[in-house]
């Protein structure tokens, strides 16, 4: 890189007393005193979160009340800090969803490890794991940070869905969904 010579101007008499600089700074402070405050008084006032805010991940159910997760373990694989642990299991034969075959027997997210990146939501082929608006996760010991399946479903709620891809075709004929 070339050498750039910086010219330093000599300060004038007034500037050497530093009084104009002090006055200028105080003037800026005074101006801001009468501006609108952006401080949010948390926790009484909460921030307005955008619609796709990446908070804590949760598991969701579909409009039929079925748990959407099929324990494919893609979220576990893509999770950068390895916060998710899934134990797949089989769906019992008698259940109306036995044609789906797989559901998680255990699903744990360690919130102490989760970095709220949202890669699990991107990777999920069933749109079963969704990051919602909770951003403040606390606990008294490390064990309490591990959230189990029931907890995650409870926090998740229902995801609206108009495709319902696992519904059997025989049911679809009545609901006139059509193939295209």
């Amino acid at each position: 890189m070339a050498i750039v010579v910086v010219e330093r101007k000599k300060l004038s008499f007034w500037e050497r007393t530093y009084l104009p600089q002090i006055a200028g700074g105080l003037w800026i402070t005074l101006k801001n005193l009468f501006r609108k405050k952006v401080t949010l008084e948390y926790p009484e006032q909460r921030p307005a979160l955008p619609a796709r805010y990446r908070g804590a991940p949760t598991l969701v159910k579909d409009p039929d009340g079925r748990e959407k997760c099929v324990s494919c373990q893609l979220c576990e694989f893509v999770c950068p800090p390895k916060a998710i642990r899934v134990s797949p299991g089989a769906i019992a034969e008698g259940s109306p969803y036995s044609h789906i075959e797989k559901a998680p027997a255990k699903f744990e997210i360690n919130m102490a490890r989760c970095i709220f990146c949202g890669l699990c939501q991107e990777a999920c082929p069933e749109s079963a794991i969704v990051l919602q608006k909770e951003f403040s996760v606390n606990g008294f010991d490390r064990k309490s940070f591990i959230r189990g399946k029931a907890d995650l479903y409870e926090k998740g709620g229902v995801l609206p869905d108009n495709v319902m891809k696992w519904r059997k075709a025989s049911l679809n004929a009545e609901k006139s969904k059509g193939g295209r």
Partner: protein
Amino acid sequence: MSDLVNINIDGKPCAVPAGLNVIEAAKLAGVEIPHFCYHPNLQVAGSCRLCLVSIGTPARDRATGEPVLNPDGTQKIAFMPMLAISCGTKVSEGMHVVTNSPQVKAAREGVLEFLLLNHPLDCPICDKAGECKLQEYSENFGRGRSRYVEEKNAKPKKVPVAGGRIMLDAERCVLCSRCIRFCREIIGRDIFGFIRRGSKNEISVYGDDGGDSNYIMNVVDGCPVGALTEAAFRFKMRPWFMRVVNCVAPESSAGVNTNVWVRENTIYRITPRANPFVNDSWTSDSSRYEYKIVNSDLRLRRMRVDGAPCEPGYALSRAVDVLKSDPRIAVVASARQPLEEQFLLAEFASMAGAKVYAVSHLGEDDGFLVSADRTPNMRGLFVSGLIKEYPKPDLSDLAAEIRMGNIKTVLCLCEDATSLGLEEKDFKLANFVYCGVNDSLTARLAKVALAISSNFEHAGLFINRQFRLQKFDKAVCAPKGVLDFSAIAVKFINAFGASLAENPDIGQLRMRISEMCPILPKGCETGEGGVVIDSSAFASIKFPETKSLHFLDNE
């Protein structure tokens, strides 16, 4: 070596052995040709049409037979107007193979598209995800988006076959017919077959579903998609989480090469590893579940002295005391140990002046991959010098010697002596030091019982029935408190006057035994497929194994 043939693949000239088909030749040149129905150990079917490539041969003038030349003087290559299947075409001199032309790419896209038309959207719930060839090829060579908007065909799913060991899902089948050919050629009878036709063509089992065959589960490895999956592994773990360890099945002296799949110190399944000299790509079903000993209830987990559990350090020192207490000492060696441990045991036996006994475990030879000798390393006992003749199936000799008062101390390895001719009273006549993996009556009666690592918890070498030296690696760590026998043996040897390095690592052990024994290769290097060692010194011994795959079949 067979003659080499010069061919040209994708513009790159290379020389490959004659008699290969184009898929194998391309693999040698580093080019992957996708295929479903071709399998190197089964007959060629040519039905999937995914391996279509553009093949050209040197052009010859029809009348005179002279080669036709290009304007610039090089040999003109006449490409066939239609694509040819590479699994069914053998290489010939001067052949040109093109796998990246637009015609070939369009063919692959088309074939994959047709296969995916009726394929169910099962990837998240299918066990084969991660190792599914259809997934790989669709990603690499497929179209990307589906143009099919009609309804898909429904076929039977979740059908247990082979006595419940395999789950069949007919919707996922890509009709490659590998399972049909395997059962017909290797097992010898028709178990799978196609029924119906057209788009309703599905795979099914005939009346006898193969539950009685000990090799039926090889179709699970052969199936390129998730149509046939192992029921014991169903929904257990995804392949991308697991690491693969090269091992050798300890079921019999066939020495079948296996892959052991491990995640975080747990073994999830065992699949065969291809070795064209030993087991092709097959293994027996019974050897797939050998890993259950690692965590079974029978496992000996704590050392015991006089029946009371104790710390390993104390148990070892008591064991050394017992072994040194009386010079009338015997050693019962085991053919299930790896070669390194057998050599250490031989060294101990010679230093202690011990008489060596061994036991043979015989079963029925099934003519394929389960031999009559149900131990993996009987020949290691001969090579290490522990025994000179083929051992009897019991320890009656040892029992007799103990009762006569000639033996007062026994170091017994991995053999349940009480089921081999010894009785409780013998344990009072002689002091037993038992080193084993499983708990047994012998372990409870022995003065000192030492828990050692199983064959999945240490690396080692086995010599199989072909006298082939094969190595296997450590898959999981032994449970806490369990020691490797090599460490224990070194302590015993040092107690008798030597000064070997404590806790030797496997490389040092192998270098040492290769120096001690000239027929072993230097450092016990086995290479890819194992190395056959000189067995002329043991030619007079009558081994029980009979003709089998790659053994005595003039192969």
